[in-house]
C-alpha cells in the first residue's frame, strides 16, 4: 500500500514538473503578494515582518491547494484517464496520499521565493530551530487544505469548483486572521478565527516562528477540521462516477 502511495506521488510529480510553467506559476502569486503587502508595510519591524511572512505562507498554502486540487481534480475527473485508474486495484487512500506528497513537493517550490524575500528584503528573523519548526508546521497545515481541495474537486464539476474555491478562499483568509497581525483583527474575527482551518493553521505558524501562545482549542479544532475534510473527500471520491449525465 505504501509503495502504491509512492507510485502515485511519483507520477503526480512527474506530470506536474513536465510543465514547468505550472511550477513557476504556483510560486508567482505568493512572491508577488509578499512584495506588494509585506515588504512595504511590515518590512522594517522584525516581529511584524516575521508574523506577516508566516501569515503569507499560510495564505499561499491555502490558496495553492484549494485551487490546485479543487480545480485540478475536477478537471482530471472528466478526462478518460481518471476512470481508467479507478479500474486498477487501488483505493482512495494511496491516490489521496500520493496527491498530498506531490502537493507538498510543489509547495517547496511555491514557497521558496516567499522565504527568500522575507530573508533578504525584510527584517524578519527566525532561529534555525524556528525555521525547521515552521517548515514542519507548513507541511502539517497543508494537509487540511489539500483535503478541502480534494473534497471540492471530487464533488463538483470544474466550473462549479472554480466558483466554490473562489468564494471560500477570501472569507477563510479574512475570518482566519490572515490579513491582519496577531491580535489585530476586528473582535468577532479574533473570537472566530482560532476555530477556522485558516485561523488554526496560522496560529500554529505564528507559534512556530515567534512567542505566540499555542491554544489547545485551536489545535484541536484544526485536527477536527482535518478529520472531517478527510471524511468528506473520501466520501466524495467513493460516490464519484466521473462525468455525470441526466
Amino acid at each position: 500500500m505504501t509503495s502504491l502511495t509512492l507510485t502515485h506521488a511519483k507520477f503526480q510529480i512527474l506530470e506536474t514538473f513536465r510543465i514547468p510553467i505550472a511550477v513557476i506559476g504556483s510560486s508567482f502569486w505568493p512572491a508577488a503578494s509578499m512584495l506588494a503587502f509585506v515588504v512595504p508595510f511590515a518590512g522594517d519591524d522584525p516581529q511584524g515582518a516575521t508574523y506577516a511572512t508566516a501569515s503569507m505562507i499560510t495564505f499561499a498554502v491555502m490558496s495553492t491547494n484549494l485551487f490546485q486540487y479543487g480545480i485540478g481534480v475536477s478537471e482530471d475527473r472528466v478526462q478518460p484517464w481518471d476512470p481508467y485508474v479507478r479500474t486498477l486495484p487501488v483505493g482512495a487512500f494511496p491516490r489521496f496520499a500520493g496527491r498530498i506528497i506531490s502537493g507538498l513537493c510543489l509547495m517547496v517550490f511555491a514557497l521558496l521565493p516567499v522565504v527568500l524575500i522575507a530573508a533578504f528584503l525584510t527584517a524578519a528573523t527566525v532561529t534555525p530551530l524556528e525555521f525547521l519548526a515552521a517548515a514542519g508546521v507548513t507541511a502539517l497545515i497543508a494537509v487540511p487544505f489539500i483535503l478541502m481541495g480534494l473534497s471540492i474537486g471530487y464533488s463538483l464539476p470544474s466550473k462549479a469548483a472554480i466558483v466554490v474555491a473562489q468564494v471560500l478562499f477570501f472569507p477563510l483568509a479574512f475570518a482566519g486572521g490572515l490579513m491582519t497581525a496577531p491580535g489585530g483583527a476586528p473582535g468577532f474575527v479574533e473570537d472566530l478565527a482560532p476555530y477556522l482551518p485558516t485561523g488554526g493553521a496560522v496560529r500554529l505558524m505564528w507559534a512556530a516562528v515567534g512567542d505566540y501562545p499555542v491554544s489547545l482549542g485551536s489545535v484541536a479544532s484544526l485536527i477536527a477540521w482535518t478529520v472531517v475534510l478527510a471524511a468528506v473527500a473520501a466520501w466524495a471520491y467513493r460516490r464519484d462516477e466521473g462525468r455525470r449525465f441526466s
Partner: protein
Amino acid sequence: MILARTVEVTRRYGDTLALDRVSLDVTAGELVGLLGPNGAGKSTLVNLLIGIRRPTSGVVELCGGDPRLPASRRLLGVTPQETGLPASLRVGEVVDFVRAHYADPMTRDELLDRFGLTDLVRRQTGGLSGGQKRRVAVALAFLGKPRIVFLDEPTTGLDVEARRSLWEGIRSFHTDGGTVVLTSHYLEEVEALAQRVVVIGGGRVLADDTVPAIRGLVAIRRVSLTSDASLPQLDGVINVERDGDRLHLITPDSDQLVRDLVRHDVAFTDLEVRPTSLEEAFLTLTEAPAMETAR
C-alpha cells in the same frame, strides 16, 4: 467458475433508464461479445462490472466480490472506450505506473514487445497518433496478467492491419485461458473473436446465444431502389421506408425480393443491396416494447 455477474441490475441516469433488470453470467474461459446499437446500455453494463459506476438496484459481482472494492479488481484488465493517457508522460512511464498496481505483472519490455510498441517507449503519449494511443490502451489491459479483461470498442480508430494484429493478441490471451468481454457495434469484430454473443438493446438483454445463431438473427438486407411506381404485394418484406422516390426495403432474403421485383415488372433504377447495420436489424426485428423506448 463465474468471474463476472449481474443479477437483476437496473441503472438510471436521472429519468433515463440505461439498464433494465439485466442478469448476466460470464464464466472463466469465455470470450463474450456484447453487441448493440449506440446508447443500448453496453458501456453502462461494462462500467458497472469494472467498478466505475454503481447500479441503481441489483447485484454486480466481479471475481466473487464487489467491483467497487480494489481487491476484486486484482485480476481485472480494462480498455475503456475513450483513450485517455496522461499527455506529458512517456509510454514507458505509463506502463510502469499501471504495472505497479499488480502483484505479478508482465515486464515492461515483454508487454511492449508483445504489442509491437517497443519503438514508442520514450515517446510522450500526447504526441502519439490516435491509433498508437489505442494500441497502448489495449496493451495496458493485459499488463497485470489478468484473468478477465473488458475491452470497450477496442479497435475503434485502428487501421485494418492494426486491428487484425490486435485480434490475434486477444485470441492468444483467450487460448491461454483468459476470459474476455468485448463490446463492439461491429458484427464483424464480434464474429471474428467471440463464441458467445449477448445483444443489448434498450437496456435489456435481447439475445444471448452462439455467433452463428445471432448471425442468422441479424442476417437481413436492405434493398434500395429508385422508383415512382407503387409496389405490388411482396413476400418477406419486413419494412418499407420511402425517402422521396427512393425506397428502402428490409428483408431476410434479398435474392428472392429482387426476383419478385423483376417478375412483377416493377420499373426501378439504381438497385442497391447491402447488409443492414445491427441497429437497423434489431430495431426492425425486435418488437419488444423495450425497443420502442430505446428509440
